[in-house]
């Protein structure tokens, strides 16, 4: 039996929930933007922001510099808003449609009081809306705000107005402009001064409706001396058509604050022939605004037909630190072009990049990263390590590290390796009584261990399982 036979993992989360939704008409125009804003009872300034972004978006063309191959997206053939129809006004999470509760339970995310996981608060987003957030009361008591961004716009307009779009402006790129015009739900987190958030916060994104784009928006603000650990997971049904996901995540860390942001991305990746799957065009960026602030991105990208994603850090505050830990696994016909940008502005700023790309079958996996040391960034330091692993001989891996140093006190190190799972490693492990599947997953997990150890424990277990599942033999 060959290595290849074991690589066709089946997607466990490909089911569809048949639930009544309210869709807007297909396509995008100014009316749709107004409609989205109206639906959410937004203030005028936000509608103006959306319209400004929409007008700007109209002047742009999709970026083509990435190492990705796909037909043009017809932006008029997408629904820009889909929401499960509420049966009644929701007072608490226990009023949420049982069908939705059941869906999230099936995904391993129990929401109801009795069943939910202690120690992790969850905001569950279904298509364009948040259907519920757990642990809100306990968090409120210590001043932590954790709710859907729609709720935050209503309840905390000053905070939103102060921070929204400050890290990723609507002019940032094509998909950021689109998101700024039509963004739906996502999560908002505010950690007040001096508070170390005692539980992990997480958002679970589920795309369900057909031909619908998901444009979530997440904003995390960590005030002076605060700390938060935030986790994010995503899945979608199996469909023969491609679906667009264009999110924006903005993080802001003030003086001495620390944000850890971890993602396990398992959107539907398309079938073995490369049909269907999510187009994942995401702009994630964190601003280390304050002195001594820290932001770390940890991502396990194992889904999506296309991944275009560069979680980045702007290291503005003196002594601030940015970290990026990434595992990107592609199989079948998946394509990933992912990496990070570390922009050093403040003095003594430090960044670390650890990227592990695994490509199997006919997939393509690209690391693209920028380390930029501005003239002001005296004594900046960066360490980058980008490793690729090839499984089989039809896949590809590329590394594009861009380094731009404008201050000669900087220290920038870059290391890169490419390796293959070889027959000798497989035979060695097999001869110790482990089957082929297990051997491959052991080798791959070992390869990723530097990144996995950055994840919170439950997430790290999930990530190992996810990688195992992705590499699993579909015939079982």
């Amino acid at each position, binding site marked *: 039996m060959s290595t290849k036979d074991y690589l066709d993992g089946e997607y466990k989360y490909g089911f569809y929930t048949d639930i009544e939704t309210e869709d807007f008409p297909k396509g995008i125009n100014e009316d749709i933007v107004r409609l989205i804003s109206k639906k959410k009872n937004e203030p005028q300034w936000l509608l103006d922001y959306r319209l400004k972004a929409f007008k700007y978006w109209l002047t742009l063309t999709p970026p083509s510099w990435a190492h990705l191959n796909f037909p043009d997206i017809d932006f008029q053939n997408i629904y820009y808003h889909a929401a499960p129809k509420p049966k009644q006004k929701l007072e608490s999470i226990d009023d949420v449609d049982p069908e939705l509760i059941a869906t999230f339970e099936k995904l391993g995310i129990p929401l109801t009081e009795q069943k939910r996981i202690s120690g992790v608060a969850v905001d569950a987003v279904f298509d364009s809306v948040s259907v519920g957030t757990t642990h809100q009361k306990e968090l409120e008591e210590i001043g932590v705000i954790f709710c859907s961004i729609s709720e935050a716009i209503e309840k905390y307009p000053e905070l939103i107005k102060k921070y929204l779009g400050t890290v990723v402006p609507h002019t940032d790129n094509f998909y950021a402009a689109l998101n700024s015009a039509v963004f739906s739900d996502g999560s908002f987190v505010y950690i007040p001064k001096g508070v170390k958030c005692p539980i992990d916060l997480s958002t679970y994104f589920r795309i369900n409706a057909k031909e619908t784009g998901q444009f979530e928006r997440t904003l995390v603000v960590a005030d002076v001396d605060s700390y938060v650990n935030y986790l994010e997971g995503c899945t979608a049904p199996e469909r023969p058509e491609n679906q667009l996901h264009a999110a924006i995540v903005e993080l802001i860390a003030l003086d001495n604050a620390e944000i850890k942001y971890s993602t396990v991305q398992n959107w539907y990746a398309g079938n073995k022939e490369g049909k269907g799957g999510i187009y994942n065009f995401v702009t994630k960026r964190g601003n280390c605004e304050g002195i001594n602030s820290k932001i770390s991105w940890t991502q396990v990208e194992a889904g999506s037909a296309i991944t275009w994603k560069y979680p980045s850090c702007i290291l503005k505050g003196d002594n601030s630190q940015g970290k990026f830990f990434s595992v990107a696994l592609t199989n079948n016909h998946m394509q990933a072009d992912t990496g990070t940008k570390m922009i050093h502005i403040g003095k003594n700023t430090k960044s670390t990049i650890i990227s592990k790309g695994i490509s199997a079958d006919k997939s393509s996996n690209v690391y693209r990263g920028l380390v930029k040391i501005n003239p002001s960034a005296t004594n900046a330091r960066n360490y980058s390590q980008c490793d690729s692993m090839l499984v089989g001989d039809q896949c590809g891996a590329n590394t594009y590290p861009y380094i731009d140093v404008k201050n000669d006190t900087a220290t920038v190190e870059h290391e890169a390796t490419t390796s293959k799972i070889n027959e000798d490693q497989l035979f060695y492990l097999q001869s110790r*009584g*482990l089957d082929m599947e297990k051997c491959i997953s*052991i080798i791959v*997990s070992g390869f990723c261990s530097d990144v996995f150890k950055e994840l919170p424990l439950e997430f790290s277990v999930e990530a190992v399982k996810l990688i195992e599942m992705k590499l699993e033999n579909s015939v079982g």
Partner: protein
Amino acid sequence: MIEIKNLHAKVEGNEILKGIELTINPGEIHAIMGPNGSGKSTLAKVIAGHPSYEVTAGEINFDINGKMVSILEQEPYERAKEGIFLGFQYPIEIPGVNNVGFLREAFNSICTHQGAKGMDQKEFKEFLKPKLELLEIDDSFLDRSVNEGFSGGEKKKNEILQMVVLNPKLSILDETDSGLDSDALKIVAKGVNSLKSKYTSTILVTHYQRLLNYIQPDFIHVLHDGKIIKSGGKELALELEAKGYDWLIK
């Protein structure tokens, strides 16, 4: 334990084994000796099921639950679960994979197959203790990545540790003695001797007579050009040491 009949095998089109005949009974230790390129390592790998080697003729039958069963169609891991262990001449590095975690995974996989209960982390640690002492291995050895950055001697010790833990019915050691100093050699021998029982068998593939000072084989076979050309008792090793192989090869 194992019977090998008229075994022919090739790799990349070259026939290496050309009719091996070998029967090993439970409790026996056999040494396979011979000049470079005679097919010793190939024989070891073929028994363990290395996918690069193609068996073109012959049989390998192994004792599974008291019956001699052909294992030629079995995957390497299936053979391992039935109790065949191959100690590698060049142990492979598996970066990032915790040594003790891997060892427990292998142990539990084999235990489960043989109907025994696996062990949790704590039990396994206790279970390992006397084995580490026997082989004079430091605890810190366990937390490193499998063979990564190990010295040649450490790698060989790790093989012997795996063997002692997995407690195979048939251990095949492929030139485990090469590159070891005499202290390390003694430790390897201790490991092998600790497994000796009337139910287990060992095949020592070796170049030198040296190892046989510490492990007493019951039989010695000389391999040349893919065939066993001479078999004898342990005194044959001394004769080979004194006379080399030339007198056997015409």
